[in-house]
């Protein structure tokens, strides 16, 4: 419980320590996998904040290297954004940093390091951050799956080889074990007739997922924490790239005693069961599905003024070839693997910013505070990129020229190879903000930029 004095002051305080520990990721027993944790567990504890209430998150660094924490998707002051060098000095081993902000939006977010991101995320540092609505949605259960992907060796330890050039220049360090809330493909108890809200968060380094719910019809009610018009995903398949969150409502209309798999079939020929809903044998909770509305109240996002928008375009370049054409970095067509010998493998508008963030990163463009930015993102590469904007949620306007339906706002937008996305946001939050691919290898190898709001 929180100390009374803190409650009385109206500040919701949480303390989290990043430190090594062991975790039972494979279910194979002791001693488990050596991982890096928040408060001893993978994923870290679910941080529950309340919309509009000031929060204080104290992060203590128990690692042997610098870290920071980025509260992904929260629209917060720039100095609380957790990018080392750019928005704060890194938290040195043994030191602490206090993140203070008042979350303006309710929804499903997450927190993770932004220092040595590839290694720290890949060793397990991630946790969900839920900002609760003032009025909860009418469901029987509200639960969360933090999905993490691990590349383990045969003896169940984190595989070495972070930053491998082939990973960096292709699809990133995709692993060989996926966990749900830190456990291997688990049975999820279900009861016929209940209505559940399932918050899905992909905390993987690089694995893109496409989830199908056997025998069920998921309804998407929020994307990246932002409520949208409730809708069923195309083909019943939910695509969830690294760092993306999707809130769905499931009416559990399966048969008592039966089991229904949740399948991830994103990669051709590599489908697997992520989880299984196991219905208890009891009678249905109710005879007919609830008819309560599924829509969530909107968050206070400023509406872009497209007529007066400032247009910006970013072009994603580089990576290994696909379809017989190699687009090199910086216009090079070439022999060497992009990313070899620590070279950049990727670029945005011909410029490769590598690493996790550092001071003196020159902004690609500058926006006047309050202006609407109409941002076009063009993927010239042969690979998928979930592009994450810090500090803002972007309203999706179009994908490859077709309007994006369901009023979707996202902080992480997935671009398929050769996709062009148009989106817009109001630059109401001053500071230098990151815009990068959330495949950690891609970010580290150059798929990152910075823009400034004055």
């Amino acid at each position, binding site marked *: 419980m929180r100390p009374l004095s803190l409650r009385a002051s109206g500040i919701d305080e949480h303390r989290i320590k990043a430190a090594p520990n062991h975790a039972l990721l494979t279910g194979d027993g002791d001693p488990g996998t050596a991982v890096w944790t928040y408060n001893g567990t993978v994923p870290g504890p679910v941080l529950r904040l309340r919309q509009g209430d000031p929060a204080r998150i104290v992060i203590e660094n128990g690692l042997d290297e610098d870290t920071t924490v980025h509260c992904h998707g929260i629209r917060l002051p720039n100095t609380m954004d957790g990018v080392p060098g750019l928005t704060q000095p890194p938290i040195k081993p043994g030191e602490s940093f206090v993140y203070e902000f008042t979350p303006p939006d309710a929804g499903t977010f997450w927190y993770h390091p932004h220092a040595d991101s590839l290694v720290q995320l890949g060793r397990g540092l991630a946790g969900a951050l839920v900002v609760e609505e003032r009025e909860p949605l009418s469901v029987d259960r509200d639960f969360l799956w933090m999905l993490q992907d691990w*590349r383990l060796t045969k003896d169940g330890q984190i*595989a070495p*080889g972070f930053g*491998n*050039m*082939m*990973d960096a220049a*292709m*699809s990133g*360090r*995709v*692993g*060989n074990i996926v966990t749900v809330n830190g456990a291997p493909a688990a049975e999820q108890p279900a009861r016929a007739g209940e209505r559940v809200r399932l918050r899905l968060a992909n905390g993987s380094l690089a*694995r893109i997922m496409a989830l199908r719910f056997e025998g069920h019809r998921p309804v998407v009610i929020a994307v990246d924490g932002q409520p949208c018009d409730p809708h069923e995903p195309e083909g019943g398949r939910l695509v969830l790239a690294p760092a993306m969150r999707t809130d769905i409502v499931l009416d559990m209309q399966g048969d008592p005693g039966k089991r229904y798999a949740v399948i991830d079939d994103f*990669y*051709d*020929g*590599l489908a697997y069961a992520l989880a299984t809903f196991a219905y208890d044998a009891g009678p249905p909770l109710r005879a007919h599905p609830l008819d309560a509305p599924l829509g969530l109240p909107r968050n206070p996002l400023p509406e872009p003024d497209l007529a007066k928008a400032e247009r910006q375009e970013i072009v994603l370049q580089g990576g*290994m*070839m*696909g*379809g*017989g*054409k*190699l687009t090199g970095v910086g216009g090079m*067509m*070439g*022999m*060497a*693997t992009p990313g*070899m*010998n620590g070279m950049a493998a990727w670029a945005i508008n011909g410029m490769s910013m590598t690493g996790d963030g550092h001071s003196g990163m020159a902004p690609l463009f500058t926006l006047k505070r309050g202006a609407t930015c109409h941002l076009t993102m063009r993927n010239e590469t*042969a*690979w*998928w990129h979930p592009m994450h904007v810090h500090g803002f949620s972007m309203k999706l306007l179009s994908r490859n020229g077709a309007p994006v339906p369901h009023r979707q706002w996202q902080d992480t937008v997935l671009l398929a*190879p050769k996709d062009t996305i148009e989106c817009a946001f109001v630059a109401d939050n001053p500071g230098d903000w990151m815009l990068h691919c959330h495949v950690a290898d891609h970010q580290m190898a150059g798929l990152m930029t910075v823009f400034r709001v004055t």
Partner: protein
Amino acid sequence: MKLTYRLAALAALIATPLPAFAATINAVMYKNPSCSCCESYAAYLEQNGFKVDIKPVNNLSQISGDAGVPADLEGCHTLMVDGYVVDGLVPVDVVRKLLTERPAITGITLADMPTGAPGMGGEKTGTWTIYAFTKDGKAPTVYATE
């Protein structure tokens, strides 16, 4: 470009004694599910008397590392053929040389994805060095240049 490969492959085929290659050679290719050049390379091998079983994997660098391929010499896929590892877009005449000579090595690799290599587009520029590697920690040696 494809024509150039075929002619080169044909030349290699003519230049090599045929009986050794009369039978189909089975191979297993591990590749990234999203990389298409590897599929072109597999098709090229099949045109040259191989039967290639393609296995998409997400942890290719782990598989090639376990197979002994030095991390700085990785190609874009890993092929297991007749007891050897053949990594990357190695021309078929070099693969045949390996299977004929049967040296005491783990495998051979053509690093990166050079323009003009089988499976890639473009014109060949410069010399390709195909390295032999072992699993005993010794430095890779040059196996062939093309």
